[in-house]
């Protein structure tokens, strides 16, 4: 039982990062039907900022806000430089555009910074544990989960209570109708990228605390897990993205923990089989938004 709870908390910690990334992808998908592949670049760019600041002698208390700001600015900058020009194109054109951005950004770091991973110190408390009801839990996991919950609550507040959030939801439901009401495409899309950048920034903070590495493709792995989470949850649903993220984290950690060691290498294979089964049974993901067929 103790082991199970440890695993569960670990899974929630992993899942937090996926959930935040999935949510940030879903926010953008909602307004412009773009699966933003370049989202991992926010973490990549942040990783070099973290490396730079850390080499310059700054601690995490500076690095954390720096990552958040970097992520928001980078997200909006990429929108301004690339996605603005393919707005309204078909989904694959947008997808491949973001794919191109991903490779250009990582190539730039590879060329002008370093092809090799650059390490910076992780926070000192990262491996500390705390005993709760006799169970050893990692402080890092608990902080991740708490910070994620707080971030999600703030996001819910923004979406429900602010004019921007209401507009964003309206535009996700029916972009043309929102324009008819006087919503400006530019401001709602930029706002979506800013919000999305902030969410990715929070995820980036925890990802980078854990890895402590800056490299040209630092954002790739978390991005891919985020993508898996968002499709598992259902591309068009914000709550689905969060659920998908946590589910992915927990399933992944549980598989690692409980598979017999001879076949533990099959974890990702089993994950994919589960995913494929999910799509055969529920192609629209865990939380489905009904798509009416229009004739």
């Amino acid at each position: 039982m103790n082991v199970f709870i440890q695993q569960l908390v670990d899974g929630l910690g992993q899942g937090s990062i996926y959930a935040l990334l999935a949510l940030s992808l879903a926010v953008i998908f909602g307004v412009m039907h773009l699966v933003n592949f370049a989202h991992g670049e926010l973490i990549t760019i942040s990783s070099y900022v973290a490396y730079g600041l850390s080499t310059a002698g700054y601690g995490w208390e500076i690095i954390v806000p720096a990552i958040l700001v970097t992520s928001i600015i980078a997200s909006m900058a990429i929108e301004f430089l690339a996605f603005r020009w393919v707005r309204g194109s078909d989904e694959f054109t947008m997808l491949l555009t973001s794919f191109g951005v991903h490779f250009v950004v990582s190539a730039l770091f590879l060329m002008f910074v370093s092809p090799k991973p650059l390490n910076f110190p992780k926070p000192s408390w990262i491996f500390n544990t705390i005993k709760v009801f006799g169970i050893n839990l990692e402080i890092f996991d608990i902080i991740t989960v708490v910070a994620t919950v707080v971030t999600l609550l703030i996001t819910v507040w923004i979406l429900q209570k602010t004019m921007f959030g209401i507009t964003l939801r309206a535009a996700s439901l029916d972009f043309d109708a929102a324009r008819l009401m006087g919503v400006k495409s530019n401001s709602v899309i930029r706002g979506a990228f800013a919000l999305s950048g902030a969410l990715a920034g929070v995820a980036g903070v925890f990802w980078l605390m854990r890895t402590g590495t800056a490299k040209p493709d630092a954002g790739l792995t978390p991005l891919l897990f985020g993508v898996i989470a968002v499709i598992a949850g259902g591309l068009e649903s914000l709550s689905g993205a969060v659920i998908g993220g946590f589910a992915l984290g927990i399933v992944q950690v549980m598989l690692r923990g409980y598979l017999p060691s001879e076949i533990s290498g099959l974890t990702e294979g089993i994950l994919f089989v589960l995913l494929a089964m999910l799509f055969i049974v529920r192609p629209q993901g865990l939380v489905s938004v009904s798509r009416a067929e229009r004739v």
Partner: protein
Amino acid sequence: MLKVEGLTTRYGSITGLRDASIVVQAGEIVGVIGPNGAGKTTLLNTIIGLLKPASGTISFDDADVTALTPEAMLRRGVALVPEQRRLFTELTVEENLLVAGITCKASDRHERMREIKELFPVLGERTTMLAGYLSGGEAQQLAIGRGLMSSPRLLLMDEPTLGLAPNLISTVFDLIARLREDGTTLLVVEQNARRLLEIADRVYLLRTGNVVSEATADAFRGRENLFDVYMGTSE
């Protein structure tokens, strides 16, 4: 007030307009009638700036507004109540109104919303209900309420009675008449031609993208063979 000249549109398979011209004077109720596929919706969507015309000009208050976005049109005082209402079904009634008030000053928004709720008491009772759960009549009131949030001087309405029960249709027409008394100019696309003719000052008949006829409502109403004119079964 509004002047549309030689409007022609081309959008793949969507019914286009061919050289359509109409005029709306301040204080009028102008109707646009015609069978499906005549281009009525295209006309309104092009005026508001959701669609771009291939040629032709649109002017409002003597200024050229042909290439403006809906947002700019709203700021100048033109709003559209779209066909099929296009409510944000997963937003509440209040949120729908708030979005429609985005071009208002933030300080005026709630005041304006209060006025709309006075105009449509039922919306006041359903403030926190999701728009998707409203009945047909309530939904239409919300759609019109959204159109009024920006306090437009010219309101474009696209099939405001589509799918409504007869008693509700009367309510909508009464409302249109009342809006005019309050000083709003209206351009109404409607399939319910007879009722529209009762309240409209002038009517344009559209068929396959052309304005085939323009007359005062009285002149239209006087025609014996209105049905055949409408359907194109007699020339």
